[in-house]
């Protein structure tokens, strides 16, 4: 049994059908989906080491089962550009988290590579008539406002990816708009074909979202992943 199957078995074994962020990331990594870099640290010193390994700017997040709403508890700090900013962010976070949730057990911190660029969405859904479908479009928090997304039946071909791209009304944004990095067709083909393959091989995947996926100079990078099983 391959590693992806193992993760799905575990999730199902626990009576769940929604994968955690970490599990979803792991599956995506195994499927060859490029993700932003991420590391886990126990304390400030380790945070600094990991942040330097990843390279600034980074995002700092608290890891604690007790804290469900991280942002409200002050457990997420973005745009950290140096060791000293990281130290300051860490101290502020400890203070707000403990006052928001006294006695919370803090398991550690996650340091995440902060990437910027145009946000796209890549996803998958299961249609009652046509089965597995893949989606690509303009991403971010306004996806459901603009609905600028194109769908295709899985499996897809390279030609399908080109047609999907041409269906996006806001594609001008992806062509190097105002000096922002442009989307490379080869990167998009590789990512969408990987997702198509993943879902073909694992039809128990009901829905997934990679939103947003950032269009960066180095290519596409997914910074959030969510997988739901049948």
């Amino acid at each position, binding site marked *: 049994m391959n590693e992806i199957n193992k993760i799905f078995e575990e999730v199902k074994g626990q009576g769940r059908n929604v994968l955690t962020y970490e599990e979803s990331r792991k599956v995506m990594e195994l499927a060859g989906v490029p993700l932003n870099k991420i590391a886990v640290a126990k304390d400030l010193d380790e945070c600094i080491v990991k942040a330097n390994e990843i390279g600034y700017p980074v995002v700092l997040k608290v890891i604690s089962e007790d804290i469900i709403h991280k942002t409200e508890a002050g457990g997420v700090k973005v745009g950290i550009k140096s060791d000293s900013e990281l130290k300051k962010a860490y101290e502020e976070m400890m203070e707000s988290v403990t006052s928001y949730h006294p006695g919370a057990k803090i398991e550690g911190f996650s340091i995440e590579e902060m990437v910027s660029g145009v946000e796209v969405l890549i996803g998958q859904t299961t249609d009652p008539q046509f089965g597995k*479908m893949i*989606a690509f479009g303009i991403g971010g928090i306004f996806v459901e406002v603009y*609905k600028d997304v194109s769908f295709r039946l899985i499996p897809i071909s390279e030609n399908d990816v080109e047609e999907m791209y041409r269906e996006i009304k806001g594609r001008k944004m992806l062509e190097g708009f105002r000096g922002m990095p442009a989307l490379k067709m080869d990167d998009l083909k590789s990512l969408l074909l990987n997702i198509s393959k993943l879902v073909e091989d694992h039809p128990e995947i009901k829905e997934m979202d990679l939103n947003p996926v950032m269009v960066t100079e180095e290519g596409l990078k997914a910074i959030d992943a969510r997988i739901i099983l049948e």
Partner: protein
Amino acid sequence: MTRKFFYPDSIAIIGATDNEKKFGHAVTANLMENKDLKAKLCPVHPKAETIGGLKAYKSVLEIPDEIDLAILLVPAKIVPHVVDECIEKKVKRIIIVTAGFAEINEEGRKVQEQLSQKLKDAGIRLIGPNCVGIQNVDIGMNASFIQTPPKGNVSMITQSGSVGAIVLYEMVWQGLGFSKFANLGNMADINLTDVLRFYKEDENTKVVTIYLENVVDGRVFYEELHEVAKDKPVVVLKGGRTATGMGAASSHTGSMATDYSSLKTAVKQAGAIMCESITDYIAAIKAFSFLPLPKGEKIGVLTNSGGSAVMFSDFADDFGLKLATFTEEFKEKIDPFLIPLVKKVNPLDMIAGATGKEYYEVTKAMLEDPNIDIVVPIAVIPTFLGMTTSEHYEGVIRAWNETGRKKPIIPIFMSGNLLNESKRIAKKESSPIFLNPREAAYAIKMLIQYAKRKKVIE
């Protein structure tokens, strides 16, 4: 086999009648009207001695010959009895035109299920119930209660009988002809995919057109559509938005898919032409039925009306079409046919005095120019200088015929009733007239799109 529905050797018309006020009359009359039809017709009626001059039988069981196809026009309540007789008679295929089954209520659905199960067990294939019927224009068979169209190369499958009729009437009006027509009604047995499979193999079908609202087995339909579209253009019009019961989607992608028609996606992905309106639908059918696929994307435009060319250029721009740049050689070639006022640029405005002769010469020069792949002759019929109302169109078609109809021509003629004579010629010549610039630009876009799919354009 679906094919035999369209090529029966003998047909029993059960519920046939000479009484024009009776429901069964239209189908009876349509079947009997065409004397070219080779199939033996056997009208069945409980009382009549003859119908339409043919000997009538009291029941299908009285017919001495084998029956390939039985068409049922009798009231719904006696359909089960007639079906039993058809089974006893061992007819091979049945079309139930009669309505009043699964489409009305639960009881009707049950009766329909019993009928289709019985027929299945007996090995008899069924079209309907609740349908307009089918036509095979090639052999002069109109087993439906709608008008007989002229012969042509378009074959249609429609989920709605009345939309089928609209398209048929509109096509006839625009000089297009049919090969096959099928309205499948409740699809208790034969469905879209079965007919699609037949149209793919059918030699006389050059263009397949579908009107659909929903499909039963999405994946099977998609795979078949994909296969047909590799060979023949398939033009699809889809009615109704499918907010298919996606349930409560828990992802962004899922929630957007609820608004999005998966059926439209499947049609497009299969390589078929997905139309958004009946106007686009007719334009695409017209283009594929009359015209060869272009081998490139460069368009040459000639006109006697600057404004019309401007409007066409606007739509060409909207659809991402490309106008050719005239070569020096081409400019020299057309020079003798133009007055000095004319600027030799594309669109070529030959000004209102251009006659049928100039239309012939310039259209021909464009059709012969290796730098031009698609020719768009635009004309507003002049009512002056003693010109006839059809000489421009005649010039265009003559040029097209003389060059072997190798490249698509998209004549845009906008002149209301002044087009009557040109339309008559178009019908005789099997050539198209496009009635407005948008329709023309859309048709070109679809031709190019399909040519690319078939790799006629690399």
